[in-house]
């Protein structure tokens, strides 16, 4: 471990990021600017999340990375290896064993505990961005709590699709003050934003960090006559038969064959270990994992 400083970043940088994180926790939902560093990966691959993870990791931590819920995709594997190499921390695929979880686009199905930290990778932290291109103006809107525009987006959804069609990155209001983009998690995950663990959001290219402290009130925006509804595919997991988890749809042949399966691979594997078998699944065997 002489090749790198612990967790890649130098101590001054980590200190700077920790200050931003603390400020973010003190003002839930507020986007704190920070001096984002170049990371050895392209923007859009989680440079913000990696920097936040680097700043919160300690040698005793157990680290888990998920990408769209899965532990075994390229992005997840390479970030996990990165910290294995630069920080020498223990790694795991089990949600319950991890103390720091970096995630892209999902919240694990299993409820997180108070001693766990969830780090999100955020592409565009500004929820108002696609409606108001000016950063000066959006900052002013946040400062003055002028959030009418956010509802214009939802209005447009209903007028065009008959329902609030926004399915991911669904805007939320944190602790009755700041409107926040929860990163592109499916709106199915929005109710889980009120949790026991600490949630940190890092946007590397946009140079913003924000946070939700444990047990903070997080309300998904909606209309009185079109209330917020978390949605998922109307199906059970074909591997583990779970009916309460968020599903991926997989096309399996060119004859219209498809299967639905949990996007959270760890959750699915655990259920199969416990003996649950879905419509297209086979009983769990050790060598498969």
């Amino acid at each position, binding site marked *: 471990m002489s090749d790198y400083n612990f967790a890649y970043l130098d101590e001054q940088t980590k200190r700077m990021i920790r200050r931003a994180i603390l400020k973010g926790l003190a003002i839930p939902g507020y986007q704190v600017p920070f001096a984002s560093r170049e990371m050895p990966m392209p923007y859009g691959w989680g440079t913000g999340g990696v920097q936040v993870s680097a700043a919160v990791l300690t040698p005793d931590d157990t680290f888990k990375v998920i990408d769209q819920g899965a532990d075994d995709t390229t992005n997840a594997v390479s970030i996990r290896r990165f910290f294995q190499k630069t920080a020498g921390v223990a790694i795991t695929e089990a949600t319950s064993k991890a103390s720091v979880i970096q995630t892209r686009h999902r919240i694990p199905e299993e409820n997180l505990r108070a001693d766990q930290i969830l780090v999100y990778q955020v592409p565009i932290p500004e929820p108002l961005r696609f409606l108001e291109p000016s950063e000066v103006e959006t900052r002013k809107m946040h400062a003055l709590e002028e959030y009418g525009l956010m509802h*214009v987006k939802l209005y447009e959804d209903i007028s*065009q699709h008959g329902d609030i069609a926004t399915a991911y990155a669904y805007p939320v209001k944190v602790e009755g003050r700041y409107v926040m983009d929860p990163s592109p998690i499916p709106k199915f995950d929005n109710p889980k934003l009120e949790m026991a663990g600490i949630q940190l959001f890092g946007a590397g290219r946009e140079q913003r960090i924000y946070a939700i402290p444990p047990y903070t009130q997080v309300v998904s925006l909606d209309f009185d006559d079109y209330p917020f509804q978390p949605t998922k595919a109307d199906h059970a997991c074909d591997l583990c038969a779970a009916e309460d988890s968020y599903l991926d749809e997989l096309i399996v042949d060119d004859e219209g064959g498809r299967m639905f399966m949990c996007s959270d691979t760890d959750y699915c594997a655990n259920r199969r270990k416990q003996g649950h078998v879905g419509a297209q699944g086979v009983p769990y065997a050790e060598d498969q994992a």
Partner: protein
Amino acid sequence: MTPLLQVENIAKFYGARIGCTDVSFDLYPGEVMGIVGESGSGKSTLLNCLAGHLTPDRGAVRFDTRADGLRDTVTMSEPERRMLSRTDWAFVHQHARDGLRMNVSAGGNVGERLMAVNARHYGQIRDKAIDWLGRVEIGEDRIDDRPTAFSGGMQQRLQIARNLVTGPRLVFMDEPTGGLDVSVQARLLDLLRGLVREMNLSAIIVTHDLAVVRLLADRLMVMKDGHVIETGLTDQVLDDPQHAYTQLLVSSVLQV
């Protein structure tokens, strides 16, 4: 009777150049005031100072707020001023594109001000949008179309609907008929005149078109080089101009 708007010695300078200076007037509820003058005479600068888009270098603009009477909008805090500009004030831009969200449907454009003052019931917002589109003669079937699909005259009418939906008391208009052909202008003026009467609106209209003020304005203010050179009742100023420049202005209108 308290004036709705009390303007006192407003001045705005661009470096050493004068934008407008020494402008004072009172505007009473239900009154429409026209400001005419040639290009560069300071009309738009004055309007932007009154509407809070520019900060004047001198003077006071007092508005009769619902809560605590006359308040100076120049020195009031920004949140208060922005609150006024989306409730009691309306601003109609010369180019509808500046006042509309072009990538949001007509209904969304009208509904935005309602949602900005915490309307959270989709059905009610939509009903109100349909009502207002009807009042400005835009068909209900166009409610989900974007303004990009509208003609210039329709865009301008949509902008007016969007501004008036929250029932403002004071409307600022910057060349509302500029860039429209004459028949569309005539219909728009007709519509504006109706709305102003019906809602008992006060308005300040900046224009270089004397026909517009003849139709709409009760009182007239003529500006040149940043100064007000003549004020009075519209008909009085237009039919019996006193100042040499006003005489020139009135005689410059082309007769068909």
